[in-house]
Structure formats: C-alpha cells, structure tokens
C-alpha cells in the first residue's frame, strides 16, 4: 500500500462525505417521523358510548330542491380519551352529518373548502372533490378527481336523487390524496328514501341506524398516525364506528336495521355476531335486494354498503352481543381489530311498528333482471401492479391526465348493456372496484354464483385474490366517469381510469369548476 498520510487525509474527506451525509439525512428524516401510540394507551373496547352522526338540515327548500351548505373545516376531536386529535370534518363533524332526502327531490349541496392551505403534517395542499357515491350524478357533479376545489374555493354540487332508495355516502375524491382526506374525516352517509322502502315494515326511524366503520392509528401526541405501507394500504389498530373506538350501543329487544358502510381506507371486514345468530341482509349498495338473505357471516370491502337487520328480541335483557370481524386475508391486523362494537340489550319499551322483514323487498329492480345474454359486448379489466404502480389495464389516472382526459377503458353507447370481466390475478392483495354512475349485478365469481349477500344491486364489487368477477350493467347517462379501486391508497397511486358513455352530446366533467370565496350570493 503506497498511500501516504496526506493521501489518506484527502480520501478521508471524500469518504466522510460519502458515508456520513446520507446517514445524517436519514437520521434527520427519521427524527421527524411520528411515534405510534402504544396499544396500552388505547381505549378498551366497549367502554365508550355509541353515537349517531348528526342529520344535516337544509339551509333552504323550494318546491323541487333542497339546498345544503357544507363547510369542510378542521376540528379538534376527542377520539382517544385524554388526547386531542386534529381532524377535518364536513361542518366540523367526523364522520360528517347524514343527509336524508326523498327520491325525486333535487339536492344542491354547496361544498366550501375551508381547510388549511397545507396539511400540517403531510404538507400537501388539501384540494377536494366531493363524490356522492351511489348517485348517477352528471359528470361535472360526480367528484371527478381532477375537478378540484382548493382551500378558499367552493363548488355547488347538484344531485338528481332519481334512483331507488339506498344508502349512499359522500366523501372526498381529490386527486393524489383521497386516502389522507378521507382518513382525516371527510366522509358521511346520505340516505335516499322512496315510497317502496317507506312502505315496507322494515325498521325505520330510531331503529334505522347508520354505522360508518373505519380504522385509524394514532400518534403519541394524538394526531393520526400515517403509514401507507409502501403504498399498499393504511391500516389502523383502532376500529371506529361513527368516529368512536369500539363503542357499545344500548338496544331494545326488537329488530334493528343497520346501514353498514365500510369507510376504511384499506381494511375489509368479515362480519359475524358472537352469538352465532345471522344477519338478515336487506339491501346492498344500490338499494333493496329482491329478497332478504340470511347469512351468519359476510365480507365487506371498502365503500360497500350493506343494510342488515339484527333481531335482538331473541336475547335476554343484559346480554351483550359483539359484532366481530374475522378479517379477510391481506389486511394488517392488530390486537383488537377482530372486534368492532357491542350491543347491550336493555328492557326499555319500544314501538312495535316496522319490526319485520318481508319475504320480498324489491323484486322488480331492473338491474337484478339483467343477464349476460342482454349484453352487447364483454370487456375485460385487468387489475395489475406494474412498475410500482397500481393500474387498470396497465393505465393510471396519470395516463388519463396526460391524454388530456381522452383515454377511456370503455365507451358504451347510452342504453347499452355490457358485461365487464374484472380480473385480479394476484394473490397478494384484493381490490374493491367501484364503477361510477351505474348499478350493476354480480353475475359470478370465478365462475361460481355470487355470495348470498351480494344478490342485490351493487356499485362496488370485491375482487379478491386470484378472483375474476363478472358484472352486468346498463349505461344510462352521458359523459366520462371514473373506475377505480376503493383501497384509497391504491386509487391515489394510481389505480384509477375512466369510461365514457357516448351519447348525442356529452358533458365535460370539468365544465362547472369551483369558484373562489367569498361565496357568490346565498344558496
């Protein structure tokens, strides 16, 4: 070795830089990471009281339309006892207030983005795009991901409310950060009623209960803890129902109807009651099923909605019944994610009306009459992980944007019936796929009949590991609508594309852009 001391000193300067600078940056970045709240500091399951989100009141009504104002704004919430959690809520409520409307009455909903200019921890601009999930809204009011509303801006969304009765939900769909915005709290239910649903003797009123189920993880300072597991998903160690960790609800000895919405970012659930008794599934995403389905356990992916009736009259006063989750594969589970909420049976008097489930619910829903033979064509959607991105037929939303929004996966004519074969050839992840605009019927899964709880109109279908699912639907409407995975981390990175219903004239999804505050006139 002929290196002199001087040579070694020179090399030491270079070597020091090569070894120390990356390390210094890693340590510095690491010091800005969050510390996860220990499980010992989480509330014990079934110690906090159940609550129902508030109902949103219209600011004005006229002969045809209900007008609502919603302000998206920060709120300091008490989720974990003893800690304050900064969240974002519609009108400051997490989950947001429930909207209740009757079929045929139009809704105009002003959504004002009063969020901060940047997320305090994640440093992104929280632009929003509000999607009413389950509504055949016009393209410009459908929450098209690129039709964004920045902080300091607002947009009036118009909803026709023409479909059958169903549980919808409104949630953020803003490009690049839907997962973060929804995790922060921008999600809520929206109930559409119709004469058929109102006429049935199923539970109504106080016995018709929204359950917005989500999961979250918390940091030691009370903030949400963010970890997207290398863009595969966000999983919490706390299961929340209507924003409360593992709540306990007092129930009377009669039937209840629960509107189960899986508002989790990435977690799917496999429901069961610890009593072993069945749920009676009466409605799916698109409303009442033709006939109720009794199931002891069923799977629910993100964004799916199921209305189930549980009969508590079979239990004695004082009995506790636990809603459990046996967790489909490829979720990340923690100590208490196998339980969701508890029901404590009480002996209070109750109204005996609407305490039944008839044998037929909505047997004439045209969606459920569709068959593969009605289809004019079959299309294939391949859900693929490619080049570190989640794709649909190899495409991402980035591709759609770069095509100036011309790229489409399908272009059915208005009125066409099509079969879509959605294929997930991976064993490593599942994808709940949402097709905007339409209700569809699940034809089969890997060639076998759909599961019992799926025998109703749907707009999200769980495409599990190594599954191929065929759905059939009629395209009514016009313009461009999104198709995406409802694992919102997958959606953001970037498993989202679009289709176009081709009609005489089309509407640009970005033809009615947001406006800047202050609000231009009263709604």
């Amino acid at each position: 070795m002929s290196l002199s001391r001087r040579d070694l000193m020179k090399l030491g300067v270079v070597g020091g830089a090569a070894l120390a600078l990356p390390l210094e940056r890693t340590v510095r970045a690491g010091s800005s990471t969050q510390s996860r709240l220990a499980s010992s500091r989480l509330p014990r399951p079934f110690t906090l009281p159940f609550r129902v989100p508030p109902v949103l009141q219209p600011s004005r009504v006229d002969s045809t339309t209900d007008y609502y104002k919603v302000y998206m704004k920060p709120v300091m919430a008490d989720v974990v006892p003893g800690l304050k959690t900064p969240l974002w809520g519609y009108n400051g409520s997490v989950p947001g207030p429930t909207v209740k409307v009757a079929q045929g009455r139009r809704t105009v909903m002003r959504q004002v983005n009063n969020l901060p200019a940047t997320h305090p921890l994640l440093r992104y601009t929280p632009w929003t795009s509000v999607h009413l999930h389950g509504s055949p809204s016009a393209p410009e009011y459908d929450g098209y991901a690129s039709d964004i509303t920045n902080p300091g801006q607002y947009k009036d969304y118009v909803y026709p409310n023409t479909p059958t009765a169903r549980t919808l939900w409104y949630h953020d769909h803003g490009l690049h950060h839907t997962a973060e915005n929804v995790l922060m709290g921008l999600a809520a239910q929206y109930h559409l009623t119709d004469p058929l649903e109102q006429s049935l003797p199923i539970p109504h009123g106080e016995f018709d209960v929204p359950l917005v189920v989500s999961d979250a993880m918390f940091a030691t300072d009370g903030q949400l803890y963010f970890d997207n597991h290398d863009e595969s998903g966000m999983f919490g160690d706390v299961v929340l129902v209507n924003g409360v960790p593992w709540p306990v609800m007092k129930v009377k000895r009669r039937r209840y109807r629960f509107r189960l919405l899986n508002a989790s970012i990435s977690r799917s659930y496999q429901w069961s009651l610890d009593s072993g008794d069945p749920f009676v599934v009466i409605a799916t995403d698109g409303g009442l099923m033709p006939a109720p389905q009794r199931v002891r356990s069923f799977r629910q992916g993100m964004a799916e909605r199921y209305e189930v009736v549980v009969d508590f009259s079979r239990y004695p006063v004082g009995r506790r019944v636990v809603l459990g989750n046996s967790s489909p594969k490829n979720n990340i589970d923690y100590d208490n994610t196998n339980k969701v909420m508890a029901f404590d049976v009480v002996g209070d008097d109750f109204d005996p009306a609407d305490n039944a489930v008839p044998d037929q619910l909505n047997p004439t829903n045209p969606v459920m009459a569709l068959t593969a033979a009605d289809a004019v064509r079959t299309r294939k959607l391949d859900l693929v992980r490619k080049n570190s991105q989640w794709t649909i037929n190899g495409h991402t939303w980035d591709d759609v944007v770069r095509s100036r929004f011309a790229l489409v996966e399908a272009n059915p004519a208005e009125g066409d019936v099509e079969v879509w074969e959605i294929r997930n050839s991976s064993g490593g992840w599942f994808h709940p796929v949402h097709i905007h605009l339409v209700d569809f019927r699940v034809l089969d899964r890997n060639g076998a009949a759909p599961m019992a709880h799926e025998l109703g109109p749907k707009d999200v279908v769980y495409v599990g590991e190594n599954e191929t699912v065929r759905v059939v639907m009629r395209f009514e409407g016009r313009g461009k609508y999104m198709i995406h995975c409802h694992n919102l981390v997958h959606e953001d990175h970037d498993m989202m594309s679009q289709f176009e219903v081709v009609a005489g004239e089309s509407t640009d999804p970005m033809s009615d852009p947001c406006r800047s505050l202050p609000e231009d006139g009263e709604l």
Partner: protein
Amino acid sequence: MNATAHEGLHGAAVDDEGTPQQAHRWRTPSAEARAAGTLLGVAGLVHVVVTPEHVDEWAPAGVFFAVVATAQLWLGQALWRGTARRVLPAAVLSTAGLIALYVVSRTAGLPFHSEGAAVSGGGHHGPLLVPGGHGNGMPVIPGSEGGSTVEALGLPDAVCVTAEFAALALLVGLMAPAQRRSVTNLLLAVGVCGWIVWAVARFT
C-alpha cells in the same frame, strides 16, 4: 514496461519482458489488488441482488444496476487475476462516480429520477399535472419521504458504498504516484464541495 508502471503496482511484478499484449497484466496481483477485487465483487453482488426491484420500479434504473453489477464483478475478477492494470484509472473514476451518484441520490435526489422513475414512496411518474391545483397535492408521509426524489438509506446501500469506498482507496493506492496525486486532489475537491453544499443547505 516503464518505471511508473512498476511503482503503481506497488510490488506487483510486471512482465519485464512483456509483449504489448501482456502489458496490461500484473504477474502476481498484490494483496491490495485482490482485496479491492473482493470488495468490488461484494458491491457487484449487492447490485445484482437489488437489480430486480429496480427493474420493477423503473426499467432504465434496472438496466443501469445490471450494467454496474456486471462491470464490478468483471473488474473484481480481473483484479484477482491481475488483468486489470490497463483499466485502473477508469475503475477509480467510475467507482468514485458511483459513490458520488449514491450520495446525491440519498441526500438531494437525482433529477432524472423524478422525471421517469416511480418515486420511492410517491409512486408517480414525475411531476403530475393537476389543472387548477394550488401548490403540491402529494402528501409526504413521515419517514417514507413520499413525494420526494430522495431514496431511502438501507442496509444494502451501506454495505455497498462502504465496499466501494474501501475498494476505491485500494485502487488509488495501486496507481502511479503522479496519477495518484492528481486523483486524490480531484477527490479532495469533490469531497470539500460536498461538505460545503451540505453545510449551506443544512444551516442556511
């Protein structure tokens, strides 16, 4: 063979009567040359191991890693066999260049990485078009550097760069004194510049 070559080999015998075809050979590679060869072999193997994930992330990056791995493994065996003399300057400069590339990728980020690569933690190709968007809509997940072009530091990185730097020092030691002086001065200048840039970025 000239005297410079003898000195640069530092005890490694040269083919004194060597033909032009044999001029690039050391008769008996020194322990330093073999140690450098071993270290470059380690670095090359690390590059082999991480090539598939880089192919998945961005195909051109995968090709680059495959080329680097091949070059390092070839150089490693050449140093062992004593056939690397002619490429010694190129080996020194390319190893130094790789180390510099590594430092930039783990501190400031590589400019072309955000243009075509799937960004680690970001998952998108380049700066995305968001018509009407104010500012940056890409969340930065704490600890994952999402949305940034800076790559995370991992154990394979640390092993590889340590091996490369040790190999570099040994290779410099094999050079002729005049060459060695020039190369060490150049490396010193690069190192000082690196520290200055870091200090300016960190403290201003």
